């Protein structure tokens, strides 16, 4: 007899074993009798323990579905999902796969971004574990973004499977023997110049990639929302100035990564790959430089140990790397020139840092308040002496 669980809004019926022509009528009767106690709750058939379903079983599902049009099927194994997909069940009803459980205990963390951590699970594969416990939508969005990037010629890895890791979702990528640039910088200091060049080349490649309209979000719109969130926090004139500066940046159809730092650029063999694609967008490169400033300096400006903890390199190395990348990117060796672009980037960068910290309860701790005040003072002083966020880059 199938087990069923009843809650206020849901009836879950746990199917098990095999359903074929020998027991299909019986299976249907069992399901029907589980439904006798149902009032108007939603119904899910849990396929977690179902080993096999023949077409006689599919017909049973179809009959139940005719009586209960919003029927769901959950916890479906990959094999049965294929059958349901080929026969058109996935198109006509809610069918959800079950996800393989993967352990990351003792696994090396090889990357870390705003939304999750990247673990190596064996010599060929890595899993990105999402912080958000309900990340399925994020996963499919990131996958789509990675696909767009790959089609446009940006080397990246596309996830091929979704798994469960300690109650969180993870997406699995093939990434053979890859090292993040953060690790190379930490372990092979003599490759510093090489890292700068490769890191900058990929950045230039991203920023020269034109994305067809509508494929990726405009980062400018996102940046305007960040500023909007600080309306109460900033003095009115500073808020107005920040809003005008961002508004004046033209929309742009070139790609930006949105979280470009040394843990999201990895070396696989002799290929440099971009990973963590969930922030991929289009827009003016000033927004990219802003998030890069934060990654290399902003986050660790108040507490330098943040750099060491996050990137595994010293604050000084991070600052030096950022400075070299900036100059290579801008095609200049002139400190003043680089500094003037950096200051523009810092405006957007601080807005983002302050907003982020406030949203995470930064105003409630002393350390948080001090940090936010440091960023705020810098921001106000920069706003008073900046007229545009636009800049020129010398073509190399």
């Amino acid at each position: 007899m199938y087990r069923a669980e009843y809650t206020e809004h849901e009836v879950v019926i746990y199917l098990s074993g095999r359903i074929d022509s020998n027991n299909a009528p019986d299976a249907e009767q069992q399901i029907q009798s589980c439904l006798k106690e149902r009032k108007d709750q939603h119904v899910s058939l849990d396929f977690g323990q179902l080993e096999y379903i023949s077409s006689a079983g599919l017909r049973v599902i179809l009959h139940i579905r005719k009586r209960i049009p919003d029927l769901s099927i959950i916890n479906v194994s990959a094999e049965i999902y294929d059958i349901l997909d080929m026969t058109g069940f996935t198109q006509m009803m809610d069918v959800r796969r079950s996800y393989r459980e993967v352990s990351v205990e003792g696994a090396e963390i090889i990357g870390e971004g705003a939304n999750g951590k990247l673990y190596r699970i064996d010599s060929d594969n890595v899993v990105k574990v999402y912080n958000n416990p309900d990340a399925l939508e994020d996963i499919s969005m990131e996958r789509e973004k990675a696909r767009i990037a790959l089609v446009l010629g940006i080397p990246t890895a596309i996830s091929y499977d979704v798994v469960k890791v300690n109650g969180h979702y993870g997406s699995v990528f093939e990434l053979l023997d890859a090292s993040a640039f953060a690790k190379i910088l930490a372990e092979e200091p003599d490759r510093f110049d090489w890292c700068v060049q490769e890191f900058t080349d990929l950045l230039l490649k991203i920023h020269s990639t034109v994305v067809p309209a509508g494929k990726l979000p405009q980062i400018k719109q996102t940046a305007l929302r960040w500023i909007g969130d600080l309306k109460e926090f900033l003095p009115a004139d500073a808020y107005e100035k920040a809003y005008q500066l961002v508004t004046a940046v033209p929309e742009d159809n070139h790609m930006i990564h949105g979280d470009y730092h040394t843990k999201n650029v990895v070396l696989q063999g002799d290929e440099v790959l971009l990973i963590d694609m969930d922030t991929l967008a289009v827009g003016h490169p000033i927004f990219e430089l802003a998030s890069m400033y934060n990654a290399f300096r902003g986050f660790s400006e108040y507490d330098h140990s943040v750099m060491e903890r996050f990137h595994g390199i010293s604050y000084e190395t991070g600052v030096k790397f950022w400075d070299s990348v900036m100059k290579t990117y801008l095609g200049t060796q002139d400190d003043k020139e680089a500094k003037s672009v950096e200051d523009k980037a810092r405006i957007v960068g601080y807005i983002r840092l302050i907003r982020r910290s406030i949203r995470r309860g930064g105003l409630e701790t002393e350390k948080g308040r001090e940090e936010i005040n440091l960023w705020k003072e810098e921001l106000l002083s920069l706003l008073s002496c900046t007229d545009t966020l636009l800049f020129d880059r010398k073509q190399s």
Partner: protein
Amino acid sequence: MAFPEKIDLHMHTVFSDGSETLPELLERIRENGISLFSVTDHDSIQAAEEMEKLAGQENPDGSRCLSLADGIQCLNGVELSCRDEDGKYHILAYGYDRNAAPIWELIHNAHRIRMNKVSKRLVWLEEAFGFLFDQKDIEYLYSLNNPGKPHFGILMAQHGYAASKDEAMTNYLNKKEFKEEFIRPEEAIEGILKSGGIPVLAHPFYGDGDQLILGEEMKYRLEKLIDFGLQGLEAYYSGFTQKLIASAEELAADHHLLITAGSDYHGANKTVLLGDTGLERVSDAAPGLQAFLERVL
């Protein structure tokens, strides 16, 4: 030509594994507003004979499509179980001449094969497990039109050889198949054609009802049957999703086949609803169905 709007060309009675007698089924057909139907018992055309008596005098002897007093039409039908090296098939026959020798030959042959299976299965159950049955049980099995494993399963449960019919099926009856004798699809199709009937492949993607045959395999099987003379596909079927119906319509169009619509109603023995064929109105159907109706009406 005006076509009937609601049709169901695939259903079973007590002459095979359905639960209802023909008069009971007719009652349901009227309640459901079905204006053209066909009784397609497994390997039995007894319903077609019985129908002739129920239909009364107006229909000439040997009519392939009978008109009842209230305007409902009944097409002669049967569902033949076939097998070859590539697997199992259910082949429907429609509009045959009830008096034609070849269709009777097929029915007798199918019945003989089933009876032989009953004998062999009885011997096997006794020799392998020591299960013995009463004379009246054995007579009952032989009296059935379509004795199969489920009937053995019920008897085994009654005798305490197994806890339930399902257990008898799983632990004993499904362990051994008696496959030496079977009707090949080409034999069935030839017999149907020689009796003036239209051979149609039942629930095409489901084989004999328990398989899933898609893509190239389906195409291969279908083209082989067309070489034998198959003329139609049951594209509208209660167990098909819209996607499968669309694939079947496409297969029929690609191979210039007729199309039929059937529920596979078995009365209380299965929960299929009479008239549920996946097709709402005949006027919505692919051209192959109208071509079929033009042939038989």
